[in-house]
């Protein structure tokens, strides 16, 4: 089993931070319109530092694994640093490239996070 596959399965079966965040002050939702992945990322940002990050998703294993890794990674980062996360981070964190045609599954949490850091909860 490749490292990529082992990471995806591990984080899909035991996702970290998959829970609502009632104290969130930033949040965004994202969807892949054709495959149907849906995700909500909620953040607690205090003094420009992400102090908590959680997600809820009805999504495929790759999307959930990426969201799990991402919410672990962003704790302690500034909003700007979180917004700068890109596909390179995804490939590094997953220890491999998503299969052809699945990049959008992995990028959905990243794109949603970028919007979340700028979007105050009303």
């Amino acid at each position, binding site marked *: 089993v490749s490292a990529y596959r082992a990471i995806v399965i591990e984080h899909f079966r035991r996702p970290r931070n998959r829970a609502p965040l009632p104290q969130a002050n930033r949040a965004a939702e994202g*969807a892949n319109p*054709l495959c*149907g992945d849906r995700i909500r990322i909620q953040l607690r940002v205090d003094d420009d530092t992400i102090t908590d990050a959680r997600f*809820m998703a*009805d999504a495929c294993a790759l*999307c959930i694994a990426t969201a799990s890794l991402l919410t672990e990674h962003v704790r302690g980062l500034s909003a700007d640093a979180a917004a700068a996360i890109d596909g390179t981070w995804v490939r590094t964190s997953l220890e491999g490239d998503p299969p052809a045609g699945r990049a959008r599954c992995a990028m959905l949490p990243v794109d949603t996070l970028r919007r979340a850091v700028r979007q105050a909860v009303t």
Partner: protein
Amino acid sequence: MSDSLIDALTKSDERHVVQATLVSASGSSSKKIGAKMLVGESGKLLGGVTIGGCVDAQVIEAGDEMIARGGRRLLDISLDDDEAWEIGLTCGGNIEVLVQRLAPSDQSDPLIAAYAAVRDALAHDRGVVVATPIDGAGGALTLDENGTSVGSLGDAGLDAEARAVAAEALRAGSRDATVTTPAGSRRIFFDRFAPATTLVIVGAGQIAMSLTAFARELDMRTIIVDGRERYATRDRFPLADSIRVGMPSEIVAAIAPSKRVAVILVSHDYKYELPVLRQLLRAPVGYIGMLGSKKRGEAVRGLLRDEGFTDEELGRIRTPIGLDLGGKSSPEVALSILAEVVAVRSGKRA
């Protein structure tokens, strides 16, 4: 009586409508007690008290007479037929049909007032029983699942006894019963109206489209659930009662669970199946079915078992979904699913 028949009656613009209700049956009768037919002044017919043929014809004939004459009458109809008996095609048995003329726009008519209470209860997803005398003076009394009661059978003692029987009918279904009070005995029909089954259909594909069409004929409500705006559209689902786009597990979790709710997973995608099933397996819904092979079903159960769901909880997932009718097309699969929902609802399938 179905929602659509109650609607047709209470919204009818006809001056008079005759309502025929099957109140008792012995031998073979294919309809449930409480089955109804409406005969309009204009000749319109809706519903039926039997599966048709000569028996409904007799009821229509009596209805036509009563449109002119008014009142209430109990028809005692034999299902035996000498010629049919000879060739082995008789049903056999006896039925009683209560036939009464109603004025749909007359709110002082006790039964019309009772049906207003029925509509309100059904609109709020509650069951209700209407008690009407089969013999003697008229009247109508309702007992709602929420405990409220409106109307009267004309005597406080009779009303109290009738409410006790109605409470039983709420649970067990329509029935006729003789109610005895110091004032005497009366034969009363207790007509149970149950809210429609709600189909929560997860996955807005081809099978879902057929499900909404068939469900309409079965007086079932449909809620289409999907995360994809492009699939879950009014164009594709003109007959759906509700179309909800969002995170399917959250949408399903927000629907009040009851035994009248059937959840049908036809997304054929674990991204919806697993989170929706997590919400459902400990909720008191009446039916959970999931499209997929036995092997796929076992794989999904395996994943959920690892998360702590018990075998009993996982045993609630019906997969492969539907009765095995042999069909493969989307409408055929939809038909088999609804056949299973009906079988489970009527206790023919555990």
